[in-house]
């Protein structure tokens, strides 16, 4: 299992996949932090010309920077998860390289778990490095730190781990391309489900709310992101929204912590999917 996990990482490195993703990630991070730097400079000029100290509301600006930046990290991480996992078994089968691997003295479940571990290290590493870099970079530039960065990163990791597992399961039975399309679509639908729920709440349409809730449990990626975004927002900002009565209607970020139900469900669901993936892979004629 470890041999296969190491092989997965080695493969990603060698095929310059990691290099490319890493460079793009760095580019994104650099541009993002440069933008913050420009904004910070503009604020300082304004404060100096008006002869004031930074007003407390400035933190809300930095908060929006970190939320939108991490949203992007989460999106890129999800993309890598789906594209990386989509062909991890079917691609090997299509290429004909799988035959000499599954006939080695390792069980199919160990092969699948090795692939899973390798992919997790790759995608979770991406989120940790890029997300962590973003939070720390912004802190160094502006002194702003989200209230619960670690909880937010943790939820983002769970969301990406879920996508990796689900797509890997697809890879046991579907071709690489259909599999990638299917899971990008589901990811998009979960996102749309979150929007539907927000619109449903804003317009008091129970059907839309219901649809959103169903999608949240069927494919919890978006719900997990909304949970993560809650931990990135300043409590005073959330309180203010609550007071205005506009709670729960922002379609992109959440105003409530993720329910323990959702967390428990996502974890159980992930493990169940992993179990089903092993079962499907074991039963399959190669």
């Amino acid at each position, binding site marked *: 299992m470890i*041999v296969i996990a190491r092989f997965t990482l080695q493969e990603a490195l060698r095929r310059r996949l990691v290099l490319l993703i890493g460079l793009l990630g760095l580019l994104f991070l650099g541009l993002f932090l440069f933008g913050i730097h420009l904004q910070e400079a503009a604020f300082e000029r304004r404060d100096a010309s008006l002869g004031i100290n930074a007003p407390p509301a400035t933190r809300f600006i930095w908060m929006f920077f970190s939320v939108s930046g991490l949203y992007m990290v989460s999106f890129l991480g999800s993309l890598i998860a789906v594209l990386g996992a989509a062909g991890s078994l079917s691609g090997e089968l299509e*290429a*004909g*390289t799988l035959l*000499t691997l599954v006939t080695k003295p390792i069980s199919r479940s160990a092969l699948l778990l090795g692939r899973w571990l390798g992919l997790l290290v790759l995608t979770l590493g991406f989120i940790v490095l890029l997300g962590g870099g973003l939070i720390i970079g912004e802190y160094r530039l502006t002194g702003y730190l989200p209230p619960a960065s670690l909880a937010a990163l943790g939820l983002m990791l769970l969301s990406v781990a879920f996508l990796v597992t689900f797509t890997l399961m697809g890879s046991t039975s579907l071709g690489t391309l259909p599999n990638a399309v299917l899971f990008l679509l589901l990811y998009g639908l979960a996102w749309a489900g979150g929007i539907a729920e927000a619109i449903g709440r804003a317009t008091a349409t129970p059907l839309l709310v219901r649809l959103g809730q169903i999608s949240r449990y069927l494919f919890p990626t978006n719900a997990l992101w909304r949970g993560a975004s809650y931990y990135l927002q300043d409590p005073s900002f959330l309180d203010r929204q609550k007071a205005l009565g506009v709670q729960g209607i922002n379609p992109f970020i959440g105003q409530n912590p993720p329910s323990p139900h959702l967390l428990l469900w996502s974890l159980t669901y992930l493990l169940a999917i992993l179990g089903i993936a092993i079962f499907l892979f074991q039963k399959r*004629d*190669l």
Partner: protein
Amino acid sequence: MINVKAIETQGLTKRYRSKLALEDLHLSVEEGEIFGFLGPNGAGKTTTIRLLLGLAYPTRGEVRIFGRSPQDVDVRRQVGYLPELFRFHEWMTGAELLRFHGNLYGLSSELLKTRIPEVLERVGLLGHEQRRIQSYSKGMQQRIGLAQAILHQPRLLLLDEPTSALDPLGRKEVRELLKRLREEGTTVLLNSHLLSEVEQTCDRIAILHRGRLLQQGRMDELGALEVEILARPLSPELTTSLSQLGHLVQEGERLILRLSSRERLPEIAQRVLAAGSQLYQLTPRAHLEDLFVQLIEEAS
């Protein structure tokens, strides 16, 4: 555990949706022999190998490798395999590929340090191991495939058309490699549609057609047997007498006799002497091509 068969199948049947790929195969391969699996394309040879390896599951019937299930990890440790459509991770170098496969076999890095050059030498790739697989020719890829199959000194080697990408010289090298492996006690199952290859290497063969076993047995026991006779003088009495044993053709000063049954082989010498001639040479040879064509035609 006395005399456990290397391969044993009972009523092995595989159906892919509506297509019957293999039907009721009873096969038994002893340890230490080279067993040839012959048949036209689509006969079910590759399906059989996949079932033997546990890559596919039988619709009916049973497979035993050294008396155990092919899914058994301990069994797989003793099996080497080269698929027909071999492809390896092209971004690896030859040496990296063998190290990776060695690790999957559970071989220690220490052992691999001596073992990898050995197998590279055996398959004729020594000196090319630092190159990436993508720069290898098709033939070299087949050789590295053979190398990964014999890396762990398997007790049983399953080769699916192992010389398809090799030139005549490469084929000869593989034949010699197989013979050396047999001397070391390795059992080999060889899938091939190259009759001469099977004829020159295998102890026993099975002929498969449309998923069914037509014939299996020792090379020299199978069906028609041709005998080359050099006798002097070539009198009419002699030819008349010999033609009673089977189909007789004269080629120069030699007679080629195709016997209807192996049992009549000893009669040849008697008849030559009885006809008043001297026997200089009597060479039996199994003629696989004729047998093969005959069997396939009968079955079609």
